[in-house]
């Protein structure tokens, strides 16, 4: 079991960078990458924070992370389809410019 502390600190740094970028980026594509990167950081914490089973890392969290990776790509794929349609219909790729869409 390699050194858990190294991975946890790296995961925390990546999470912080992701959250920073999520708040600062105004392009939705960048925000989606930020959410995917934060997800990977949390998966890292999930695997490392679980206790080792006779030496090797516990197998159950790895299966959870595999499930999480597939869920992450489903959400990102739908978000990208939504983003492209949003850009097509309103011409904007950001949540900020509030064109008034009410009738």
């Amino acid at each position, binding site marked *: 079991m390699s050194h858990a502390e190294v991975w946890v600190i790296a995961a925390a740094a990546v999470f912080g960078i992701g959250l920073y970028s999520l708040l600062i980026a105004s*392009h939705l594509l960048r925000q989606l990458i930020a959410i995917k990167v934060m997800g990977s950081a949390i998966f890292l914490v999930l695997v490392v924070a679980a206790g080792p089973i006779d030496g090797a890392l516990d197998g159950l969290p790895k299966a959870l992370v595999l499930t999480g990776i597939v869920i992450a790509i489903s959400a990102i794929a739908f978000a990208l389809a939504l983003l492209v349609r949003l850009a097509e219909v309103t011409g904007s790729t950001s949540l900020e410019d509030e064109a008034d869409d009410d009738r």
Partner: protein
Amino acid sequence: MNALEGLAALLLVAGSSFFLAGTVGLLRFPDALSRLHALTKADNVGLLLICSGLGVLAGSLQTAGMLLLVWLLAMLAATVSAHLIAGRALADDTPELPGEQDDTP
């Protein structure tokens, strides 16, 4: 450090030096075509040396065979992508990668 490990170490060092040469070429050469040249040549030979070094270290022929397959596949992908990038670079004769200029936040 019997003969096999010595040979493996030699191969690995040679391989990584080729990679180093390829990377220096990537950074130093002026335009896309020469950089492609550096990359495809140096890295492929480097990969071959490293794969063979690992094959020797692994000791079993089956692993060595699989490593060679890795190299073959990498080379196939490298040649075609280099061909496409070169085609694109010549067509646009814009040296940098597409989208380099728009710095969207």
